[in-house]
Every structure is written in structure tokens, then in C-alpha cells.
């Protein structure tokens, strides 16, 4: 508690001092969200409140400092037993006496999400510190992004910051070379990235190479030293490419990444997407995703697959899936849409009606419901339960 008060005092003094300077901006948002889930005919609720405070300061024409601090509180059902969602053939893999470890807790937390300094010169930008890393052209899935995994039902939500040193060099008006180093305990364990982005005709494209340690866990073994499931770190080397442009009037994007793994099997991921806006303002998008790390038969999904999926260590556990989204602006303030996600490999699907409403200049409401229609044991199994989220966000 003392530590928390000290931090608040430090922040308020720092922010006030910075606020007194020229060219300092303080902004952010407050977000209140309720999540409802139906599990085995019972409804459960999880509430959370999030305060995000952003600071941006232009220290000079070519030096920018930016940071944001997040404080999140959780209320209601703050512990979820993951085994409640899984099929009996999967839960039977749980080692005896370890059942209590398969609980997902939602605890209050506060953290410095991003904090970086950016030096901008005529032909290059150098960004040092905790920063968002956004890679690839895919909307829901990004085969070339080894740093983040998007929330399937809410893919445009902001991603966390990563500690990194990033250099973007402009090679003429069209090409940019990016190098990034994300330090870990040793050079060997640190992530390294190099990317060339350019444009040919009306298509953007990029070539990318990344080396990073992927931190899987074995969710059937417990590590007494870390008091967590056993970590299985493994070097991952990725070579990928992406493009985005227009073909026959449709928006088109493709993203591909081949992964060489140090110990386990190599795999690739592929995304192909298209979108279109009709004259009557309806917007439609379809995205196909293949992940050869995923399985083709849902009866092969094991406890590790499910836990890695829920812990967001891997993007999918089924091999092929399609995401589609259609949205229409019913009024100038209200957008209504529906997402449909179909797992081709296990023939399960989910429907997700969505709503976005602008309540006032700086207040948005977002809500969605999700309904699962798959067989037990599939990715979108009925036993996963139905549910939804309603979120109000106030910007300041």
C-alpha cells in the first residue's frame, strides 16, 4: 500500500512538473466493462475498470517522450476454473491433485505499459524503451507478429508495450528499413528483428526476419522453483512477408511466416484477407488463417493445446479458420455488425453480434455477444458457454 501511495505521489509530482512545461500533453481514458458468461446454465459476471493515463512531451523538435500508466481493478467472479470449459477427455489429463492450479485469476494490477523516447531525424527514427510493436497486415491474425496475439473477438484492442530499441531508416520516399532489438538476459535470448517495407504500384509489401525465444509452458508439469507450470523456452526463427493493396476493386492483404523451431516441429502461418465497402455504406471483411501448429482433428486437442490457447501463448489450436465481419452504420452514431468465426478443421463456429455507439463527443459504448455452435471438444464448443461484453469508454 505504501509503495502504491509513493508511486502515486511520484507520478503526480512528475506529471505536474511536466505539465508545467510547454508541449506536454496529458490524456487517456477510463473504461468500465462487464463480461457475462453462461457456463453450464449458470450466469457469471466479471467487472473491470481501467484507467489509462497517457503523457506525451515534445522535448524539442526531434525528441519526443511518451508513456502511459494503466490501473485496472476486477470485481465479481475474479477466478475462473479453466477446467469448467473443457471436455472430459481433456480434463482427464490433469495430474491428480493439481486441479486447483487450473484457475485463471483476475487480480487488480497497475503497470507502466509504454514509456519510450523517440529521436526523429530527417531520414531515421530511433525509439528506445517500452513501446508497442505492430507487425503485419492481417486484421485478426498476424503470422509475422511474434510479439503479440490479438484477442479474437476484439482484435483492434490496443496491444501491450515491449521493451525494445527500434531504428527506422527511410530509404527514399517509398522504402523503410526497420531493425529492432528487444533485450532479455543474454544477447542470445534477446529478440532481433529486421524488416524492409516498400511499395510497388498500389501494393505495400514487407519482408521480415525475426529471432525470438518463445516461452511455451507444459501445463501438465509444475515447477516448484518458479511456482508455476514448467516453462519450455525455445528459440524461434521466422522469415515472413506481407502485402496489402487492391485487386479488382477489393482490398486484399496476405501475410505469411515460416518458423524454424529449435526443438519442436517447424511450422508456418498464412493469412489471406479481403474487404469491401458497398455503396450503401455496409462494410464487409473476410480473413482466412492457416496455422500448421494447429491440429486438423479436434479429438487430438490436448490439455497443453487448450491451456496455451487460453494463456495466449499460441494463436489457434485448429489448423484452418475463417473470420468474417460485416458492419453497417445504422445512424451517424450507431454501427451494428456481426462477426462469424468458423473453424474449418473442427467444423465449429461462433457468431458475435457487435454494436458501437457514440454516446457523446468523447464517450463510446461497445458491446458484443458471443454464441458458440460447435460439438463438445471443438474450439467453439457449446460447452464453452455463451456470453458477452459491454464496455463504456470515456476519453479525456
Amino acid at each position, binding site marked *: 500500500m505504501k509503495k502504491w501511495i509513493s508511486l502515486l505521489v511520484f507520478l503526480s509530482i512528475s506529471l505536474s512538473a511536466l505539465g508545467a512545461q510547454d508541449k506536454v500533453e496529458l490524456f487517456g481514458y477510463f473504461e468500465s466493462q462487464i463480461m457475462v458468461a453462461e457456463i453450464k446454465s449458470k450466469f457469471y459476471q466479471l467487472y473491470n475498470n481501467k484507467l489509462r493515463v497517457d503523457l506525451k512531451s515534445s522535448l524539442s523538435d526531434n525528441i519526443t517522450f511518451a508513456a502511459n500508466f494503466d490501473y485496472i481493478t476486477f470485481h465479481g467472479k475474479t477466478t475462473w476454473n479453466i477446467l469448467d470449459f473443457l471436455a472430459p477427455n481433456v480434463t482427464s489429463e490433469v495430474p491428480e491433485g493439481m486441479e486447483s492450479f487450473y484457475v485463471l485469476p483476475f487480480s487488480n494490477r497497475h503497470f507502466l505499459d509504454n514509456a519510450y523516447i523517440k529521436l526523429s531525424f530527417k531520414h531515421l527514427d530511433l525509439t528506445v524503451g517500452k513501446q508497442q510493436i505492430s507487425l503485419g497486415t492481417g486484421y485478426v491474425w498476424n503470422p509475422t507478429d511474434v510479439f503479440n496475439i490479438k484477442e479474437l473477438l476484439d482484435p483492434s484492442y490496443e496491444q501491450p508495450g515491449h521493451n525494445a530499441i527500434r531504428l527506422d531508416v527511410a530509404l527514399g520516399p517509398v522504402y523503410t528499413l526497420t531493425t529492432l532489438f528487444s533485450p532479455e538476459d543474454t544477447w542470445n535470448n534477446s529478440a532481433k528483428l529486421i524488416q524492409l517495407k516498400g511499395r510497388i504500384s498500389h501494393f505495400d509489401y514487407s519482408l521480415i526476419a525475426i529471432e525470438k525465444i518463445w516461452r511455451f509452458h507444459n501445463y501438465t508439469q509444475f515447477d516448484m522453483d518458479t511456482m508455476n507450470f514448467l516453462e519450455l523456452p525455445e528459440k524461434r526463427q521466422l522469415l515472413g512477408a506481407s502485402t496489402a493493396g487492391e485487386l479488382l476493386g477489393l482490398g486484399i*492483404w496476405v501475410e505469411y511466416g515460416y518458423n524454424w523451431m529449435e526443438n519442436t516441429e517447424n511450422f508456418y502461418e498464412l493469412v489471406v484477407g479481403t474487404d469491401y465497402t458497398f455503396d450503401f455504406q455496409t462494410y464487409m471483411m473476410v480473413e482466412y488463417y492457416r496455422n500448421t501448429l494447429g491440429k486438423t482433428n479436434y479429438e487430438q486437442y490436448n490439455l497443453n493445446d487448450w491451456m496455451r490457447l487460453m494463456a495466449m501463448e499460441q494463436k489457434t489450436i485448429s489448423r484452418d479458420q475463417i473470420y468474417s465481419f460485416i458492419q453497417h452504420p445504422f445512424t451517424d452514431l450507431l454501427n451494428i455488425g456481426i462477426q462469424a468465426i468458423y473453424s474449418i478443421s473442427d467444423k465449429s463456429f461462433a457468431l458475435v453480434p457487435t454494436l458501437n455507439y457514440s454516446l457523446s463527443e468523447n464517450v463510446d459504448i461497445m458491446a458484443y455477444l458471443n454464441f458458440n455452435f460447435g460439438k463438445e471438444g471443438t474450439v467453439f464448443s457449446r460447452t464453452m458457454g455463451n456470453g458477452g461484453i459491454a464496455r463504456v469508454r470515456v476519453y479525456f
Partner: protein
Amino acid sequence: MKKIMFSGLIILLMAPVLYSQELTGEDIIKKVNELFDVESGYAKAKMTIMTTSGQKRTFIYESWSKNKGEKNLVRYLEPRRVKGQATLMLNNADDIWMYFPRTQRVRKLASHAKKQKMQGSDFSYEDMGSGDAFTKDFNSKRLKDEKMEGYDCYKLELTRKPDGDVSYSRLIMWVIKENFVPVVIDYYDEDDPTLWLKRMIESDIRIIDNIPTAMKVVMYNKNDNTQTELELLEVKYNITLDDSIFTERSLKK
């Protein structure tokens, strides 16, 4: 409708000495087109949307343009909800990128995205683009002269060319005889040339840097019964702009 009005700028050349009786529809539309031939420009504008329910939404943005509107950058300043969002349009809005500061992501948009409403307003991105659509995508025919908004005007009918890349089948335009300002434009449905969709009215024309400029533009949406007003807060013409402003790197700044 690429050329209609980038950032609410309606730019006029000094009124040329011409004899209206001799002008054809194509002559007049060429003169209108020349109004946009300013090498570069900067504007700060306020966009106010009046919604169907009578609510107001106000946006303030800055925009920069170069090469007679071939390159455009728009960056939002207010409200907080969209602050930092930016749109880059190159090649007369054939290439569009949008930047979302919350996710620090740049997304390349296909040209169909130009049909989308800009921040829910009655202007589409296409309306806000730039280029030479009046001459490139439409055939122009002169109709009987009329008085409109208090001005003596040429009245033109613009019909989309078979290969025209625009979302309107037809425009009716009233052009002020004195200075070739298109003071009123009516827009008709892409498929039904009789279906009147929107009307744009320009007003408060001032001379800025020797260039006549409409400081206020209102778009009335006949279908939705809404309107959007664009008001120029600051305008500069023929300023020095580095090409690096119109790049993906610059979008993120």
C-alpha cells in the same frame, strides 16, 4: 468526387476575362478545376456534424496538401477520442493509409474505403480527396444559367464517364460567373441518376493569399436528413512542404 473539396478548401483563381456566352460546359469545368491548382496548402478546419437525433459532433483537424492536391495528409486534433488519427492520401487519393494511435497501426485501405463516411459525417473520404475528377471522370454539359445563393451562375450537368471512378452518376453544379466558384453542387446516386442524395453549399468567400477561398461549406444529406458543416479556421497557400511529410513515417508523428 475526388476534386470537390479537400479540407473544405475551395480555391479560386482571379476571375479571368471571359465571355460567358462563348463558354461550353467543358470550358467552365476546366476553369473550376483550375481553382484547385494551388501547388501546396495548409488548413486547420472544424467539422461539425448535426446528427439525425439533433446531437452535434465536432472535430478539428489539420491538413496539408502538395502537388496540386496529389498528396494529402489529414491529422485530427480534437476530440480526444480521435486525436492523433491520421489519413494519408497519395496519387489523387488512389492510395490511402490510416493511422490509429491507440494501436500504433497503419492500415492500407483499398479505394472502396473512399465511400465510407469521414468520422460519421456527410462527407465521404472521396468527397474530401483531391485530384481532377471533375474533368477526368465526368462529361460536362452547360444548362440554362440561373441565380443561386444570390450569385449569377452557370449551371452545369456533369455525367459520369463510362470509365469514371466515382460514386456519383451525376452532379448538378452552379458556378459563380464572376470567379468560377462552384457555389452549390447536387450529388445523385451511383446507379439512379434521378435520386438526389446530397447538396453542398459554399459560403463566406474571402481572398486569402490572393486566392478566393470559401471559408464555410455545408453538406446536406437528403436521405438521412443530416448535415455537416466545415469551417476553415486557418489557411495558407503555396507553402514549402517537404515530401517526407507525405510518408507512412510521418503519419505516426
